[in-house]
């Protein structure tokens, strides 16, 4: 029997979306640092504006470098296309704004990145969009929270800070039963560790700032459409299924059977809200994606080595990592994340805030900052930084202890990381 020829992740990471430059043969993706594009004639211009021809008009709406990045992530995720945005937050906002209006409702995991939680908790209600947060480990809670006006179910592939593993097959199934799409933030896992569309998710976004870029130099987001959700059948999404006066009465689901969501997101959301990605950032993120496979493999190897070390340390009360049998999602992780559970995790240091402070200040290789997913190892102690205003009780409510430390494991030699941590752990326990 003949075999199909679909390229694998490491090949797509290097090649998808890009052809050698036709003009000069440049092998690397050229950076099209231009705002706009010369029209050959007036009819061609009108055809481009009216979506009768393929091409670019203005770089807020699309750009050749961004387009190559968008194709690449769509290929890696197994979707139909993508839109590059100014940040991961812009990607989340674009998804929500494309799907719903004031009066709509979202059901979201309660274990979200702080920025996403803030958007849903405080900012979107100002625009008439409410969110109910549920425990991501309680699949029935998602179902119970769905209302007639619900338009989206949302969670992170690996939640924050407890690394809750979202049971995508079950949550997607209940969302689909209610005629709703499931959006996942796949920042912590990347397509190397999980391809959420294959598990049932409908939309994916990334903070490409993190593992996809990997270098910590460029902020960016990517919103990917799986192309399977049937907007017409659902009947809950007039933005996609009814004429849009902002574009000649276009009905997006008639225009594109598979990519109606992306069409509306580009023709309205990116055009009108304008949170586009810079072509320079798109280039830099593409450079990161080229080495996604080898980097993620190393991230995971290092993370596993560090988890093992910390789990055995007397200075550590416990480590939160789904590959450990003590983690509540251990079995689910083995099923959904067989290649690893990411390289961002937290552990609890004995000795509270003071121990945490001494630990952080003794580290030499780990950088103390508020980011994750860098090639360099990173550390943060929430009780003395991001959450320093909270007392112990408030911290506990947020799932954080006074001794909680979050690590993002980079690509350094694992032994150097472990030696650095060992030194800092010893310092943390000195009274």
């Amino acid at each position, binding site marked *: 029997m003949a075999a199909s020829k679909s390229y694998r992740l490491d090949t797509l990471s290097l090649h998808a979306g890009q052809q050698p430059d036709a003009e000069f043969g440049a092998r690397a993706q050229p950076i099209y640092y231009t705002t706009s594009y010369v029209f050959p004639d007036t009819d061609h211009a009108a055809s481009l504006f009216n979506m*009768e021809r393929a*091409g670019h008009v203005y770089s807020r709406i699309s750009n050749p470098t961004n387009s190559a990045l968008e194709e690449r992530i769509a*290929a890696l995720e197994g979707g*139909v*296309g993508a839109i590059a945005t100014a940040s991961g937050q812009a990607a989340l906002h674009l998804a929500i704004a494309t799907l719903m209006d004031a009066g709509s409702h979202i059901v979201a995991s309660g274990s979200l990145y702080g920025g996403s939680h803030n958007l849903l908790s405080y900012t979107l209600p100002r625009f008439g969009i409410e969110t109910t947060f549920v425990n991501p480990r309680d699949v029935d809670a998602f179902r119970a929270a769905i209302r007639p006006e619900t338009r989206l179910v949302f969670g992170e592939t690996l939640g924050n800070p407890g690394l809750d593993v979202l049971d995508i097959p079950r949550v997607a199934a209940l969302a689909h039963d209610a005629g709703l799409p499931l959006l996942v933030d796949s920042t912590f896992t990347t397509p190397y560790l999980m391809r959420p569309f294959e598990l049932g998710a409908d939309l994916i976004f990334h903070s490409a700032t993190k593992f996809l870029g990997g270098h910590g130099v460029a902020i960016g987001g990517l919103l990917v459409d799986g192309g399977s959700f049937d907007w*017409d059948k659902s009947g809950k999404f007039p933005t996609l299924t009814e004429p849009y006066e902002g574009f000649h009465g276009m009905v997006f689901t008639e225009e594109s*059977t*598979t*990519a109606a969501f992306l069409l509306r997101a580009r023709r309205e959301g990116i055009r009108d809200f304008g949170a586009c990605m810079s072509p320079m950032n798109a280039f830099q993120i593409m450079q990161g994606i080229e080495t996604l496979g080898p980097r993620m493999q190393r991230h995971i190897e290092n993370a596993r080595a560090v988890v093992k070390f910390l789990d055995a340390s007397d200075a550590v009360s416990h480590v939160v990592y789904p590959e450990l049998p003590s983690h509540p999602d251990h079995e689910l992780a083995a099923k959904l994340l067989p290649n690893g559970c990411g390289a961002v995790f937290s552990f609890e240091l004995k000795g509270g805030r003071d121990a945490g402070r001494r630990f952080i200040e003794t580290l030499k290789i780990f950088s103390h900052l508020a980011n994750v997913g860098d090639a360099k190892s990173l550390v943060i102690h929430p009780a003395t930084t991001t959450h320093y205003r909270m007392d112990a009780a408030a911290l506990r409510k947020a799932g954080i202890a006074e001794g909680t430390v979050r690590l993002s494991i980079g690509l350094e030699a694992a032994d150097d990381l472990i030696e650095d941590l060992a030194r800092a752990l010893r310092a943390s326990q000195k009274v």
Partner: protein
Amino acid sequence: MFTTVAGRKTYAYTANKPLDSSLPAIVFVHGAANDHSVWSLQSRYFAYHGWSALAVDLPGHGRSEGAALDSIAALAQWLVAFLDAVNVTQCYIVGHSMGSLVGLETAARHPSRVNGLALVGTAVPMQVSDVLLKTSAANDHLAYELINTFAHSPRAQLGGNRVPGAWMLGNNMRLMERSANGTLYADFSACNDYKDGLDAAKKVQCPVLMILGQRDLMTPPRAASQAAGSFSEVRTVILEGAGHSLMSEQPDAVLDALIGFVDTTRTTPA
């Protein structure tokens, strides 16, 4: 727009414009396990350039009800019933792959109704490989995977699309996956069993355009040459580097070939 053909609800994309009987009509017919959306760019162009453009969903495809028809003769009969339903007496027909055979048979049966015929990614006869027939008969997902491999040129396997942010292989896969079980097999059987193509070609009286992909593995250019010799008036455009998914691989080149064809063969200006 929706209409009724043989008692079944039937959809045709018109770029959200009402049909205008004072304009010349151009009808686009998709291929196996596809729908009208494969023509979205090209049909939209014609709809905004003085034509009544109709990109149909064949029975059992896209938004059209019914089961897929399993012979080219039945599909040609259906297409004429569709034209009657929308009061189109004469038109250009543009067909891709299986749709090209539907156009060919329609033009042969009803020469007075077809002013021009564009065959995109065509082969006459259109033999379908055993592996595709077997896998599609079994509703095996491998059939879609093989099509994606065969239907895109080596270049297109890695993208580099002109449509911003669109991943061609993903789009084509999701479109095929929307087909009901049995649809792809009915389509492939219709293509494979159509033995009258060369005779039909001799009966065609209108000008014919063939748009072929140089790297097309499903309908390689040589498979269209015999039919080309049977038409009374034919021109052939071979798109360099293109595979079988011509409208997504080289959308502007397909459109430009169609514009050139209608501009030089129309008897009445738009």
